[in-house]
């Protein structure tokens, strides 16, 4: 890991260079001080920012359940998304989510700060564009293009094998909430060649799905949520309901890597790969050697 002093030195150098030559080279290098207020923009920024460019990330940046790249957060300063924190840090650019902190965004814009909002990504195919946009904002266009095209290649590489019949899956979240059309999970299932039962039945977004119907619909794959063992809730209990344990052995119960579908980022590929791997192990696909 790069020592903090070196990072500081780099930042100082960056600030000085911006101050010294405030035109073409500075624009190409991107803003010197960038602050991220949202766990999703945190991760894109941590992947793309040059050392020292990112001066603060949100307090959730290393949340094990929400942040896939929790290890990148290191000792970066954390913020709670408050306008006061932004003003004290004097960033050149603030990146944040569109919905989480809209009031903060409005206050900051009125005060003349440059705030770039990112929508909450709901589809795998729109992720590369988000990566490229963050790259352009941070002056890391080449790195972003590389990440984005790498992701597109990886997605194209998840070629669904031929199976005896369509493989049906259901993502069953805390409190018996299923993820229907218009969710990142739904598009990840599509990318992995799965039929989402909730979407098939016309459910959109996050929708209550009775446990009885899950048992009756007999999915090939049940995607269970990542539960918080250290902070219990009754909502998490659904994943250990005896009715799920009683499902036939042919029903695969899987989890996608923690945080891989909490935000749009290159890591959604990991979720797609996990879903595709599960698909290959289901009854309708086993034994069919056709690639």
């Amino acid at each position, binding site marked *: 890991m790069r020592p903090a002093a070196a990072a500081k030195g780099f930042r100082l150098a960056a600030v000085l260079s911006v101050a010294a030559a405030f035109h073409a080279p500075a624009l190409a290098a991107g803003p010197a001080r960038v602050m991220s207020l949202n766990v999703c923009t945190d991760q894109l920024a941590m992947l793309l920012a040059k050392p020292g460019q990112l001066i603060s990330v949100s307090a959730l940046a290393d949340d094990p359940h929400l942040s896939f790249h929790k290890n990148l957060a290191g000792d970066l300063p954390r913020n709670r998304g408050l306008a006061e924190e932004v003003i004290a840090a004097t960033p050149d650019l603030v990146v944040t989510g569109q919905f989480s902190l809209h009031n903060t965004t409005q206050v900051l814009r009125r005060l003349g700060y440059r705030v770039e909002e990112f929508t909450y990504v709901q589809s795998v195919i729109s992720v590369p564009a988000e990566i490229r946009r963050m790259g352009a904002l941070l002056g890391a266009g080449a790195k972003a293009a590389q990440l984005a095209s790498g992701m597109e290649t990886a997605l194209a590489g998840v070629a669904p094998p031929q199976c005896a019949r369509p493989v049906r899956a259901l993502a069953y979240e*805390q*409190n*018996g909430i299923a993820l229907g059309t218009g969710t990142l999970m739904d598009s990840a299932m599509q990318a992995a060649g799965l039929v989402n039962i909730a979407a098939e039945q016309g459910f959109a977004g996050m929708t*209550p799905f*009775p*446990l*009885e*119907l899950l*048992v*009756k619909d*007999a999915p090939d794959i049940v995607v269970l949520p990542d*539960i*918080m*063992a*250290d*902070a*219990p*809730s*009754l*909502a*998490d*209990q*659904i994943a250990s*309901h*005896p*009715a799920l344990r*009683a*499902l*036939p052995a042919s029903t695969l119960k899987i989890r996608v890597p923690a945080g891989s579908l909490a935000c749009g980022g290159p890591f959604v590929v990991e979720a797609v790969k996990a879903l595709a791997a599960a698909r290959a192990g289901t009854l309708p696909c086993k034994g069919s050697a056709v690639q």
Partner: protein
Amino acid sequence: MSRAALILLLGAAALLFFVLSLLTGPAGYGPAESLRALFSGGDGAAAIILREIRLPRALLGLAIGLALGAGGAALQGFLRNPLAEPGLIGVSASASLGAVAVFYSGLAGASIYVLPAGALFGAACSVIVLLAIAARSGSTLTLILAGVALSSLAGALTSLALNLSPNPFASYEIIFWLLGSLKDRSMTHVWIALPLIAAGLLLMFMSLRALDALTLGEEAAASLGVDLRLTRLLVVAGVALSVGAATAVAGAIGFVGLVVPHLVRPLTDRMPGSVFLPSALGGSALLLAADVASRIVIPSREINVGVLTALIGAPFFLWLVMRTRREAL
């Protein structure tokens, strides 16, 4: 109506709603198919649904209804107060607080076996506080007002504890702990709650003769050989065990213990001993009926069963308060 006939009638009603509860659900199996799946088993979807989802729910409705109906009857008899009820005087809310404090702190991991421990402790504390207040002031109103204060305090602390949990789902669970629900319970919950509820019912049952004697006043009861301290202990422990265990697995379901004893009392000789068993069975019938309704009122979305019992119970409570005032004047 004779006592045996009343008990038979209410028992039949409870059984009817128990079966209806088994037959109600979004999976939509016919009655014959459902019962066949329940009894013959197998590993088909219908068997899993009936045995792992609907049976625990119906059993809990039955047991918790018994606990709440009996708890209300015992408290009304012991305190000689028509408004006494586990929900109204804050026993259920305190049980919720106890369960929440133990479970969400994560001290015992994510185990649901800690829920009853916390709930029983909360319920016992509140019953002891209330009996102490009732012992100092015989007024109906004092006890109810103390109960309201205790309910509000326990409710606020429950909300606070849930808001402090780092788990984002915890704060949504305020609704469960304050209103109660039987959704997606499992046989694990049944095994947790049933023995404790049975023990509580037994203790309350053992106090019934003393409660009958107490209708003559404490001095007359003492001269009849009633041990007041033992009676108090039986009622406290009985209510704390049964209501605590019920709340631990289903949240605070209100008004069942208030409404049912009043509905069955006119059909008996009004002695606590005669009201007890019909109240327990009536509590089961009412809770099971409300739980069936909670699943079919809005077909696509379940509502909390506590909302339905409050819709029935709150107007009834108002009417009861008006009548009590009129009689007092």
